[in-house]
């Protein structure tokens, strides 16, 4: 028995500092944050006395909070659909091998290497809402090519602003989805296609009945990865919209609650809500991956 223990104990010792750090900084801090959200800490002066769920109840009645979630919902839907469609089209174009595939792949993926803060600067300029004489960015381009009707206030539109806000995010993340799908395509054995072809299936049928069903797990991962990035969107909004309320999302609201209003309990409560949504998305995915690996 001693021999068996001595084979794995050193390993556990070696990894334990990391495990303890993650345990404290992920799970411990989440717990602490929840405790802050249930406290009376609403000013600069720390107050850890228990207040119950009052802060959460107040948030439910807070119009800014609900508006931030509505904004996030619009953003998320457009962002997910946009990246999934763009990424899939790029992967479809590339999957059978084209000349200079490496070049196209690198170009499509390169925005991933840039920070949202840097790309936000150019997108803020491109999506400048000023109309007519003072127009700039894309609106100028539209009028130059005679498409004046396409001119619009972009992210400052009351209703569809957040859809415009998703454009830079789609620009940035489509390459990621392409890379995931491309890996998925390449993982499908050629024999499957060959067999379908032998049976007389057309190319369209092969995609519909053979290839796409095989891509389901990849599509699921892409969906979850893009979805959780979308829920957490922060830098992009700050870079494009600054702190204008029209483009408010929960992550930005949390930041302002802590930094400007010094309302720590409120900031913690918003963050906890955000965590809840991300967990609902990611935990099943982790469990699924874990089970897959066991097999």
């Amino acid at each position, binding site marked *: 028995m001693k021999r068996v223990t001595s084979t794995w104990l050193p390993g556990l010792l070696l990894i334990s500092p990391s495990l303890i750090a993650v345990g404290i900084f992920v799970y411990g801090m989440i717990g602490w944050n929840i405790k802050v959200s249930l406290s009376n800490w609403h000013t600069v002066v720390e107050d850890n006395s228990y207040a119950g769920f009052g802060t959460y109840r107040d948030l439910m009645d807070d119009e800014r909070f609900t508006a931030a979630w509505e904004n996030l919902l619009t953003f998320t839907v457009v962002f997910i659909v946009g990246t999934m469609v763009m990424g899939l089209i790029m992967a479809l174009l590339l999957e059978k091998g084209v000349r200079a595939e490496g070049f196209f792949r690198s170009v499509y993926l390169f925005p991933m*290497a*840039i920070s949202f*803060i840097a790309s936000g600067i150019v997108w803020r300029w491109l999506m400048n809402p000023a109309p007519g004489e003072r127009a700039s960015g894309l609106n100028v381009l539209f009028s130059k090519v005679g498409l004046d009707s396409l001119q619009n206030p972009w992210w400052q539109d009351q209703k569809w602003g957040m859809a415009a806000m998703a454009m830079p995010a789609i620009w940035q993340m489509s390459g990621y989805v392409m890379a995931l799908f491309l890996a998925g395509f390449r993982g499908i054995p050629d024999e499957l296609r060959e067999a379908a072809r032998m049976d007389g299936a057309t190319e369209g049928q092969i995609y519909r009945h053979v290839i796409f069903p095989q891509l389901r797990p990849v599509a699921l*991962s892409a969906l979850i990865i893009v979805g959780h990035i979308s829920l957490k969107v922060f830098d992009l909004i*700050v870079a494009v919209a600054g702190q204008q309320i029209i483009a408010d999302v929960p992550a930005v609201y949390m930041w302002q609650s*802590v930094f400007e209003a010094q309302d720590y309990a409120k900031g*913690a409560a918003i963050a906890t809500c*955000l965590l809840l949504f991300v967990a609902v998305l990611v935990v099943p995915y982790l469990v699924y991956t874990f089970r897959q690996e066991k097999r």
Partner: protein
Amino acid sequence: MATPAVTGAARARLITARTVKYLLLLSFVLVVAMPVYVLLVTSFKPLDEIDPTRAWDLPSTWTTDAWSTAYDQLKTGLGNSLMLAVPGSIISAVLGSLNGYVLAKWRFPGADLVFTICLFGMFIPYQAVMIPVVKVLTEVDLYGNIWGLMMVHVIYGIPISTLIFRNYYASIPNELIESARVDGAGMLRTYAWIVLPNSAPAFVVVIIWQFTSMWNDFLFAVFLVPSAQDSTVTVALNNLTGANVVPFNQQMAGALLASLPTLVVYILLGRFFMRGLMAGALKS
């Protein structure tokens, strides 16, 4: 490639299909490159040429004035980011390598479950830990400086770094580890003799990945080191451009300047960057 059996009409269709495909591919390139064009063109314009009506034109006089002004304003931030991301990514890789080795080759009971529980840490919205982290850093006098920020990045980078190494080490044959064990090598000696010399690609992947995330991060930096003077280049850049009084040629030059290191890394080592991406989606 055309075989004699292919008729003229079918060939014509094939050529049309291929042309359409390349046209689509190129139009995507245009869309992706459009913001870069604007960045480059505007950053090389003199102040009197940046008015919106001429924004899409090439500069009539090329100048690096905007670049040098932007550099002056961002050089502290660039230096801070470098001081954060270079040592930070190396520490991440060392930790990830040791952890990944244990989880792949020196496993303890329940290792997979413990690891999965750790992985959750790389998906969480960091807002949900931020207030306590600020408190802890203040307590140990690391709030508001690069070292505290580095510590936080390293800790929250443990899951992804470990994941990349664990998946990489899974491909090292167990016989190799066993034979070292039979020769009397312990855990650390096996690591030093057999595992470490084979780890170069995984080190490159993790260092690139962590370097890019630390360099591009804004959330941790703005919470933990809010003062633009002491903070990373992303905070400095946002501070510079957020007020909207800085002319656009300087803003664009600043954005390019702040992106240069990660872009160079991507151009030189893109294929390793891609592997990091795949690992981030839990796909090997």
